[in-house]
């Protein structure tokens, strides 16, 4: 039976309180939304969040067994250059697989999931990873700025050791003009809020869910959890009530903790539900965006097998840093122009050597080094001559992936001279568990918390933007390992 084999999620470390936003912009547009939202760090985007969720989802699953990748986002850094290609390379998937970007609607997350199911069901693929992530930016003082949060979710779809079978679906699709971005638009435009709420969410979500119930002759009370998006608190509750659901059946909509995360939104809530699910539970998931997809799952006994190995939602929610400066938030999203200094201008002038990026893509995007077959020394970047001074073997190397290794740092600094939007630039020399060493920028930490000897893991982040040519450079950064994920 086809279903979910594993799940994973990434919620950015930074959260901004909606009070911080309204105390900066309340003079212009008062807001009533409570809580906080997740904010991608300056070096995170849809690609990096998809990879982080994918890493959480795959864990020790053999990467060579993956034969498909569906990447859902409305905010790929490129309109031409496949986002799934970057994600697949970073996650070290084989080249002879099928990959696709699912985009242009926030419903694309569940759509990707259903396409992956169909492919596995049809026997075209055995294991397909679905990654959904979004980093949508609202104008200062807009509703979108209040509502939209950033995150990524990942689900591995297959038919072996399934933790939740995908039992059925019902979809409705409409050309509904609630939000749109035309070619060249930096920000989305939208219809009146009340129109979106009453003609969009309040109609499409119940229509898809009712359609599903009718199609499979199910009652709403059959479900342990019902998941659907709606950022308006009163209408979110009203939809459940209209469907006849009890409040304890309805999955928390995460608006007060993360925000509406676009294509990832329903899948994030699904991952949260799976974290709490018991064998035998039925879960109903609906999405929103130019209509709605509804699908339902049946949790199996395998659920306990994966649970303890995930960062998932709960740990991610607990690990956070408040971004108390609204101006810093604007700078990270390039919404205010700050003086980055002459050094930054000079740095941006260095052209990206594209043939090198291609030739050495595995070293760069998948963090492949080499390991000496004679002495066993892992080394990064990959070498032809062994770096071990008592070995020195030539051309006796095998590929060795560092991206999933942990390490500890032997020296560090916080550099105020480096050109970065988030000074100081913290970087350190990392000795890997199992051997090998290299130096890395740090992500998601404060200088005061960095100590010689601390343990780190790695995460893909945006390293630079070649502004002259619009190229986004990605590489791995060290992230303090504070979670229980060891």
């Amino acid at each position, binding site marked *: 039976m086809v279903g979910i084999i594993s799940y994973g999620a990434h919620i950015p470390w930074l959260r901004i309180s909606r009070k911080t936003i309204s105390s900066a912009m309340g003079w212009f547009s008062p807001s009533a939304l409570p809580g906080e939202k997740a904010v991608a760090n300056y070096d995170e985007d849809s690609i990096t969040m998809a990879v982080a969720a994918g890493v959480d989802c795959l864990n020790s699953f053999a990467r060579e067994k993956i034969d498909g990748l569906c990447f859902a986002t409305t905010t790929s850094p490129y309109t031409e250059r496949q986002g799934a290609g970057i994600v697949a390379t970073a996650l070290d998937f084989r080249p002879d697989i099928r990959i696709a970007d699912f985009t242009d609607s926030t419903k694309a997350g569940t759509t990707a999931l259903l396409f992956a199911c169909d492919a596995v069901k049809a026997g075209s693929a055995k294991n397909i990873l679905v990654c959904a992530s979004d980093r949508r930016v609202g104008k200062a003082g807009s509703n979108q700025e209040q509502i939209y949060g950033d995150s990524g979710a990942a689900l591995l779809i297959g038919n072996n050791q399934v933790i939740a079978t995908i039992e059925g679906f019902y979809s409705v699709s409409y050309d509904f003009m609630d939000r749109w971005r035309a070619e060249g638009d930096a920000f989305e435009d939208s219809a009146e809020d009340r129109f979106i709420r009453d003609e969009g969410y309040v109609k499409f979500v119940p229509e898809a869910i009712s359609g599903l119930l009718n199609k499979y002759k199910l009652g709403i009370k059959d479900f342990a959890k019902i998941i659907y998006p709606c950022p308006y608190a009163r209408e979110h509750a009203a939809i459940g009530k209209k469907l006849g659901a009890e409040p304890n059946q309805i999955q928390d909509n995460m608006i007060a903790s993360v925000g509406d995360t676009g294509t990832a939104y329903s899948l994030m809530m699904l991952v949260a539900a799976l974290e709490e699910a018991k064998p035998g539970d039925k879960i109903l998931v609906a999405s929103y965006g130019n209509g709605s997809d509804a699908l339902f799952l049946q949790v199996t006994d395998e659920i306990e097998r994966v649970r303890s190995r995930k960062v998932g939602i709960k740990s991610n929610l607990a690990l956070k840093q408040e971004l108390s400066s609204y101006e810093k938030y604007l700078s990270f999203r390039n919404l205010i122009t700050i003086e980055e*200094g*002459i*050094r930054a201008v*000079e*740095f941006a002038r*260095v052209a*990206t*050597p594209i043939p*090198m*990026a291609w030739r*050495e893509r595995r*070293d*760069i995007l998948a963090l492949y080094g080499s390991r000496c077959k004679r002495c066993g*020394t892992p*080394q*990064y*970047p990959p*070498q032809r001559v062994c*770096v*071990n*001074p008592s070995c020195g073997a030539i051309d006796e190397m095998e590929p060795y992936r560092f991206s999933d290794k942990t390490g500890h740092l*032997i*020296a*560090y*600094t*916080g*550099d*105020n*001279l*480096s*050109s*970065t939007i988030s000074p*100081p*630039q913290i*970087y*350190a*020399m990392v*000795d890997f568990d199992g*051997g*090998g*060493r*290299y*130096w*890395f*920028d740090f992500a998601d930490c404060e*200088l005061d918390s960095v*100590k*010689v*000897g601390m343990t780190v893991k790695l995460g893909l982040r945006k*390293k*630079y933007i070649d502004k002259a040519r619009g190229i986004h*450079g990605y*590489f791995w950064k060290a992230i303090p390992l504070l979670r229980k994920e060891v």
Partner: protein
Amino acid sequence: MAESIKDKIAIIGMGCTKFGELWDKSAEDLIVDAFKECIDDAGIEKKDIEAAWLGSCIENINVGRAATSLARTLKLPFIPVTRVENFCATATEAWRAASYAVAAGVYDIALALGVEKLKDTGYAGLPESANTSVEGIKARFISPNRTNPGAFAMMATSYFAKYGLSPEEGKRTLAKISAKSHHNGTLNPKAHLRREVTVEQIMKAPIVAWPLGLYDCCGVSDGAAAAIVTRADMAKNFRPDPVYVKALQIALSSGEELMYTNWDYSYVETTCRAGMKAYQEAGIKNPRDEISMMETHDCFSITELTEYEDLQISPRGRAKEDIDAGFFNLDGKIPDQPDGGLKCFGHPIGASGLRMVYEMYKQLQGKAGPRQIKNPKFGLTHNMGGVPPLNIVSVGIVGL
């Protein structure tokens, strides 16, 4: 059987410009200024020079990549001229090339000249390392977004952790190194920075890269320095007080520090290696007793601290005791940076190695004015280019 360079080569003339932010001087002006002083000092004429080596590091804002800039600027008459580059050891590399050519018996008189015009970058610090990284252009993709202060600051965090120094203790120790060099700089009219700075001021200065503050970093300067070398047996024909080359060594990182896990980032492997070879070449058994004075590569205060240990002057982990005792002060047992060092004389990369020799040369001849060290015998110069995990180190020893 290979022979050493010891006592085969003599320096018979040297020149050095004032270092600093020389907005009104071009690289060509600096070449002419250093050259004029150098041949006047040697008492020779341009036509006596048979071959020349030009050292310059950062080509795009300096004299360019061709050696013709030296020939063209000085109108050298169709002699062989070669440009060399080896990061901060560039000038020493020019000096080494000239010395080896003369020692080989191919020429009798050769010129080594180093120049750097850094302030034409138009911004503070060294040029962006994405353009100039020791790791090559691939650094753009995989090296941290680092600067040189940061790469050296990492050595301080590692050293402090290894020897249990609190940030306060560590920073105070480093501050004493910079305060000493600032004092020496005030005594040198050619120095870039000529101002006394107290330990407290140094400790309170803005942080450039933790834990290094503004005064832990050397000046970024324009300047040039030059030397005329000849055969040792001919030297006294030119002057009564030539200075002899006792050792000239270079060691480069093998990649081991960056990619293997033996080294712990609290010292510089290449300095240890080049130092050992240089002492062996010069016949020095106990450096702490035999070296009279040094100009070591103090691009940052922590670099100088580790050099005390790596060059076997201070016992491992105990440089602080010597620093506290004033061992490296101008009136100490082995003065380091009598001319102010990179810290205060300044650091035009391609000129620094020869600037260091210039100070040792003047000290050995008793011409160092208010900075004069009493009866020096051996002077040591040391350059380190690149970053602690991947670098080029040169050590030179000169004497009478």
